[in-house]
């Protein structure tokens, strides 16, 4: 199965007021079934849900909140959020307002860090947690690439094992229209800046100290050739988490659900079906 075979459940957007009226969080909602929350990576939510998330929406009601500052038309929301603990409270509030209880939490990269923070601060919040190449831990001898200071032309090679592959190319493609392309670039750059408020200059805000509180079952999925954050971090996560299994995917970089869609989907579905 390839990404293009996926049927596409309709996606709607809910605007959820939060943080005492200072924020309106945009949440993409798709599918039906038990709740699953998807937290996007540092480069932002993108215009639509990716095929992996849409596939999960065939069995789950997917909620995908957009990080403050990354929603179209509301870039300065980032200036209303000041600390990572506040970010965690904002996400908890949004899920509470949506009536989402005991969801599966899925997070990619920066979203993986957020998912782990959320599940560690609120240990009863998530039923299961899936982390796809998450950031959040740091070991000096395993440097994590500074993606924000990487020249744009070198980003594909940082993110993908094969940046020329079809999945990578589809994800990196820009609109042909110059105005639309400029807007897309600006949105991605600003999303990195907004999420970077909580990762710069070292993507470590003390998560390691809190991970023991994350008691829900965790699945780690990691691309073996991840050049942004090395696969050796799997051991670090497993050392800190009480219930964590890991799947390492060969010939795969930092974004397994795009570069190795089928293997990633199979691993995640296996974990979610397993009681």
């Amino acid at each position: 199965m390839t990404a293009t075979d996926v049927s596409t459940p309709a996606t709607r957007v809910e605007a959820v007021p939060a943080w005492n009226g200072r924020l309106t969080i945009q949440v993409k909602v798709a599918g039906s079934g038990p709740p699953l929350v998807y937290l996007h990576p540092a480069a932002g939510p993108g215009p639509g849900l990716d095929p992996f998330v849409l596939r999960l929406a065939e069995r789950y009601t997917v909620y995908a909140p957009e990080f403050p500052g990354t929603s179209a038309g509301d870039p300065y929301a980032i200036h209303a959020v000041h600390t990572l603990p506040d970010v965690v409270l904002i996400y908890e509030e949004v899920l509470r307002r949506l009536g989402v209880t005991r969801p599966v939490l899925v997070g990619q990269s920066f979203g993986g860090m957020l998912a782990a923070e959320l599940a560690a601060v609120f240990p009863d919040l998530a039923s299961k947690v899936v982390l796809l190449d998450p950031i959040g831990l740091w070991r000096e001898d395993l440097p994590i690439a500074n993606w924000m200071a990487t020249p744009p032309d070198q980003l594909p090679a940082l993110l993908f094992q094969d940046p020329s592959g079809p999945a990578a190319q589809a994800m990196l493609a820009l609109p042909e229209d110059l105005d639309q392309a400029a807007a897309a670039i600006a949105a991605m750059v600003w999303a990195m800046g907004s999420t970077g408020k909580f990762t710069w200059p070292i993507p470590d805000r003390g998560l390691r100290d809190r991970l023991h509180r994350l008691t829900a079952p965790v699945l780690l999925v990691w691309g073996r050739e991840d050049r942004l954050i090395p696969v050796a971090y799997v051991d670090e996560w497993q050392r800190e988490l009480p219930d964590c299994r890991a799947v390492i995917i060969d010939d795969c970089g930092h974004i397994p659900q795009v570069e190795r869609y089928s293997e990633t989907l199979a691993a995640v579905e296996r974990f979610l079906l397993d009681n």
Partner: protein
Amino acid sequence: MKITLFEQAPYRQLPDDFEQHHEAVCSTPYSLTTRDGVYSSIRDFLDEMMLGARAGFDGVAVTEHSQSSYDMLPNPDLIASALAYMTETEGLEVAVFPMGRSLGKAREPVRVAEEYALIDVMSGGRLVAGFPIGLHYDAGLNNGVPPVEIRPRFDENLELVLRAWTAPEPFPFNGRFSQLSQVNIWPRPLQSPPPVWITGIGNPRTMQMCLERNFGFNYLSWFGAKLTGKRIFDRFWDVADQVGVPRNPYRLGFLQTIAVAETDERAEAEYGPHLEYAFRKGLGAIPPEKLGLPGGIDIRGVEALVKDPGDFGLYHQMRTASFKDLVDAGVVICGSPATVREQVRSFCSEYGIGNLHAMLGFGSLPRELAMKNIQLFADEVAPHLRDLWTDTEHAHHWWPERLGGVPSAITAGAGATEGAASNPTSIPTSTAATARTEATA
């Protein structure tokens, strides 16, 4: 017109192929230097600045850059304080102008207030206080400030500095970036307060802040004034019209790299290689991703720059720029005294520039040639520029009173951060009121 001598403090003996292998900031290997090379680069720089002070320039101006081979000045106040004392002992009526401490970078803003206050005291009230927002590589990579926080940090720090200078009583400060139980700096500046100048490269928000708050605005035109000048200065005066302040040329500063010799031919022969060194191994060797980190440029600014990168002028070709490229783009003005004064005068006159920062030492330029450039400019160019705005009704409100300025109050107005909620710690009106009271006392 006010004319300052401006120089950076580059390492002057980099290898010929430096820019093919290295970047000028952050990662530059220090193993390229020698002990004597570092000493002479700084010693010659200081001697040249003092020559400028003695030769009759209106000011001496320096910048701040950490972890950089093109300007080894991690804190310009160290240089400014040396110049303040030297010029005071020699009785030189010259402004000391650090351009200066970046407030988007500073993690100890009270120290910035204290350093400037002390320089103002040491110089007997000749400080002109520059506050750049902050270069991304310097604030972000060298000092760990998240790029999206550079401007909010600048706004809060500026309020703290202005208050620390002017509040008569100790005050607590409960900011996002600084929390202090009391602020009560000793000494405070002699001026009340020193003239404030902000450096920008074209963001209209920064211009709006300067114009609304009565700060001077410095445009440092390394990108090539013939390419960028009209865009930037037209934009500045358009914003001035929108804000509703007079088009007073003294509120605008312009930096130009200048090389002057007896004839045009001799100027090219003597200075050309050193100018190429300066821009290929300096700005040209700073990669774009270090000048524009995500979050540091407003989202609308990114969109505009993608569509039209014109504000960056010659920058993208600078790593291999020839002398001719630099001249054609207006990155440098090089020639005989007549050539130079004609070009500078016409440019400043066209765009309403009342402060010229003449960059007369650059790159690998050796001490003797830098001294020659400074002296020739002082003797044969500057005297022909000084009267540019004397026949107008405008007074210079952004220059020390001791040096002929007519200080006026800092006013309330926009901050540097587009889209930020009102800063809970800022009290622009009361700060302005304090400043006004002190200024008229």
